[in-house]
């Protein structure tokens, strides 16, 4: 149904080009912070807000397409704006608005790459994500996809003088490239001999189940690499923390979701989600990822790494939802599939807001203190109240607590899990509900992780004396944080409206809408109110009212006298900040419970040591199982191959001679 003039699509494309233009403008005065940061970044944020509006508008239209006279001769660049793209455009626009606003206040001179160049890469990154979502053929998709990887790589390595950052950047780009290879192969399989690479053609291509499955797993591999699906996740905890915080926010909050978009596009739109066990595989991997991510998050000692692992966890949850969607769809239960998809999309959006908020918060902390290590932070709620209170919203959202947004998507996902016993397959209908157990476990653990994160960074006493000099973030940064925190709250309160939007996506992809959501605008009741309902507005209102009422009552009936005193020192001398629990200590129970999953290196002090020293390092087993052997293998083959080039001219001549002989024999 192509109707009308693609107004929104053209506007969105123009906006993408606008971002590019902003980037180029930054090159005009690359070293001027005032020009780049105070002038251009807010402009970029404005563009993000406009994009949000456009995406909302586009959600109310049918799909729009556009063919640009660019690209390969047989394959011009196709663009398409449909409901799925619109949702992700909404995500990009809304999240990037906050991040850009924050970045306006964040970037300063003298940190690696010149600000102008950074701005160019940043806006290139934004624009390429936008075009990934718009791309409607394999070639333009790949271009946008790899540009996204490339620009983010440069952003990651902006402080390239630090060796770990270089290593992280390399690992990132290498993995991104491998993932892209998978995606490319996937498209190659998808065309199924039709030799057409526009998505319209891929959608129409008929594949045998075997080839379709191969395509699906290639897509899972490719997009999973980008999304950080275990065991393809190793780059993520290295690269995300290495980047400047607004970039970490974009990568964790937006780019990972774009990877999810790619997977949704390929498997639901192009492959029509035909085979149920695809979903099972995605679900299994998602579960593994969620648990693995959160487990590792719990034992981190670096706040940005913790958040990166937490992103892995959330990606796992998203994949869980995605897998469920595929299972339902393959069993021809479109309404339930729609519910699961809505949960997935919702979680994408929620994660985007909350994780960006948290990463930006760490950025502020980093700027104020220069520290990323939990062991040297603490008590910042006194010095940085704005950051602390706004980040609290993100913390609660990531922990999946009502009435914030993280809870809604998990709620929806659990609701869809509750329908899995109705699947007409004897074994699956018993297996799947167990997924819910895993999901709940991951969600509960993420609460643990968030307490650790927030408690150690913002609460308690400052662990270093110089933290007393920390300053709260500036106005632009506050604005950015505020936008995202408000988003977290807002998204938590309007699930009904959001589901109405997602309904357009599900209609388009799965052929089923979410039906009549509810009689009331405030009551979320998918499927039937009898079955389950949730009203975040009422919830929020009640809890606020209850708190207010209690406060008032206590104030009215009793006195309000307060004395300040030193905290209880256990009967001994005064407490020092060093006596607080450390992040290692906080992670200890998790380390103990899930010991087989970690690769631990402990250095324990002996009784005789003068300066006792305790160190524990947690490493990823996958690195040693999968990546290190692969790298060693490549090196070994390379060493073998180097025998070919051993310097003696006679041998070279012999090669030539033998080649000639062999070919002649072959020909005869």
């Amino acid at each position, binding site marked *: 149904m192509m109707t009308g003039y693609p107004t929104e699509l053209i506007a969105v494309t123009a906006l993408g080009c606008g971002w590019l233009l902003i980037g180029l403008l930054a090159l005009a005065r690359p070293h001027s912070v005032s020009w780049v940061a105070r002038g251009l970044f807010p402009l970029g944020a404005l563009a993000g807000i406009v994009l949000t509006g456009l995406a909302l508008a586009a959600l109310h239209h049918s799909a729009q397409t556009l063919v640009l006279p660019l690209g390969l001769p047989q394959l011009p660049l196709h663009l398409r704006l449909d409901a799925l793209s619109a949702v992700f455009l909404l995500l990009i626009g809304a999240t990037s608005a906050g991040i850009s606003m924050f970045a306006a206040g964040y970037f300063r001179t003298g940190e690696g790459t010149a600000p102008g160049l950074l701005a160019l890469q940043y806006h290139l990154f934004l624009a390429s994500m936008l075009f990934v979502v718009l791309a409607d053929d394999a070639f333009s998709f790949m271009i946008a996809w790899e540009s996204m990887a490339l620009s983010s790589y440069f952003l990651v390595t902006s402080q390239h003088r630090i060796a770990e950052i270089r290593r992280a950047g390399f690992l990132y780009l290498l993995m991104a490239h491998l993932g892209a290879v998978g995606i490319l192969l996937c498209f190659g399989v998808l065309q199924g001999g039709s030799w057409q690479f526009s998505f319209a053609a891929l959608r129409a291509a008929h594949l045998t189940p075997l080839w379709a499955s191969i395509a699906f797993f290639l897509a899972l591999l490719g997009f999973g690499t980008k999304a950080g699906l275990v065991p393809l996740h190793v780059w993520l905890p290295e690269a995300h923390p290495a980047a400047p915080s607004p970039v970490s926010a974009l990568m964790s909050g937006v780019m990972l979701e774009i990877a999810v978009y790619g997977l949704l596009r390929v498997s639901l739109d192009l492959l029509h989600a035909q085979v149920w066990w695809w979903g099972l595989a995605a679900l299994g991997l998602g579960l593994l990822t969620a648990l693995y991510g959160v487990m590792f998050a719990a034992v981190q000692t670096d706040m940005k790494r913790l958040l990166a692992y937490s992103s892995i966890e959330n990606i796992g949850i998203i994949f869980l939802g995605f897998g469920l969607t595929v299972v339902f769809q393959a069993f021809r239960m479109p309404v339930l599939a729609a519910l699961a998809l809505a949960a997935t999309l919702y979680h994408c959006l929620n994660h985007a807001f909350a994780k960006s908020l948290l990463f930006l918060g760490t950025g502020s902390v980093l700027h104020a203190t220069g520290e990323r290590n939990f062991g040297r932070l603490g008590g910042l709620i006194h010095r940085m109240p704005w950051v602390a209170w706004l980040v609290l919203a993100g913390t609660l959202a990531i922990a999946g*607590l009502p009435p914030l947004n993280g809870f809604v998507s998990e709620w929806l996902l659990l609701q869809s899990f509750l329908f899995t016993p109705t699947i007409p397959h004897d074994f699956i209908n018993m297996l799947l509900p167990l997924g819910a157990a895993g999901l709940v476990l991951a969600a509960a653990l993420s609460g643990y992780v968030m307490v650790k994160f927030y408690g150690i960074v913002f609460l308690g006493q400052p662990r270093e004396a110089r933290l007393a000099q920390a300053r709260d973030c500036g106005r632009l940064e506050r604005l950015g944080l505020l936008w995202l925190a408000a988003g977290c709250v807002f998204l938590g309160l309007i699930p009904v409206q959001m589901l109405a939007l997602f309904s357009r996506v599900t209609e388009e992809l799965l052929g089923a809408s979410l039906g009549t959501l509810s009689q009331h605008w405030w009551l979320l009741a998918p499927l039937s109110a009898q079955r389950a309902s949730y009203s975040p507005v009422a919830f929020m209102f009640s809890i606020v009212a209850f708190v207010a009422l209690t406060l008032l009552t206590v104030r009215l009936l009793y006195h309000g006298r307060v004395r300040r005193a030193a905290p209880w020192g256990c009967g001994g001398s005064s407490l020092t900040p060093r006596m607080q629990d450390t992040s290692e200590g906080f992670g200890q129970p998790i380390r103990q419970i899930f010991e087989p999953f970690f690769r631990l290196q402990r250095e324990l002090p002996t009784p005789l040591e003068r300066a006792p020293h305790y160190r524990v390092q947690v490493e990823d087993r996958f690195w040693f199982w999968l990546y290190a052997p692969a790298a060693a293998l490549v090196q070994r083959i390379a060493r073998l191959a180097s025998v070919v080039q051993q310097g003696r001219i006679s041998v070279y001549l012999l090669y030539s001679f033998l080649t000639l002989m062999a070919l002649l024999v072959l020909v005869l």
Partner: protein
Amino acid sequence: MNITGVTAQCTEIAMSVAAAPLLLGWVNQCRAWLQNRRGPGLLQPYRQLRKLFHKDAVLAANASPLFRLVPYVEFASMGLAAAIIPSLWTGLPFGAAADTIALVGLFATARLFLALAAMDIGTAFGSLGARREMLVGFLAEPALLMVFFTTSLIANSTSLPTIADSFARHPLALYPSLAFAGVAFLMVLLAENARIPVDNPATHLELTMIHEAMVLEYSARHLALIEWSAALKLFNYACIGLALFLPWGLAQGPADPGGLLIALPATAFKLLLVGAGLALIETLNAKMRLFRAPEFLATAFLLAVLGLLVHLLLGS
């Protein structure tokens, strides 16, 4: 939503809030009896609260506003939970606003805030307690949710009043899955309410305490609110257990005044039984070593999942 509904709802909350310390007192009293002590009497928790409310609050010098806010949030969360849980009526207006999943979320919220408050002062005990509390929580929460899952699958709804309703109205049927769920729930109840064998509400021994370690820095009205919400939590959990496993006698909706006449004594009676049972369990068991607690809770979680599986396998 009509005025009757709101009135009933408020009544229920008020009664829960008011009766919660009584249940705690009853449990303590029973325990004292079982241990051959006289006990402080049923009303001791009220006296305690009154005393605390009268005291001057002493705050640590570096307490943040979060620290002062948390007792109220805590209290509000538990109050709200009481609104969700059908202790007297089913079909109350607030029942639609939050289901069992939201209820678990609400408990989690309360726990998270308390843990944050515990870490706020920056004493060793506070963060120790917070860590332990979160450890208990992350295992207990899934177990609780799995229990709810099993019942939800039986009742085809996640709404707690609906579940209770459907259990109460349907002819008696034996659900083996509910047996597993029941045991799991009991274990969760003990753990979540800082009861023996996971925690001891009466101890302040640093090696073992969980809940008490978190609230060490609280005093006066803040402590009162926290204690009160702890009592309310116990009350709530007891009511959840009743709603899930012994739902008979609940009044059906606010427009059923006759039902209330049955519901009130029925609930009171059941709560008395529950309290006595709890005291019995606490007396018969010894406190576990702390690092055994995860095993205990993992067992609870497994039982809950097993219950779910049994339900799916047997369809009952």
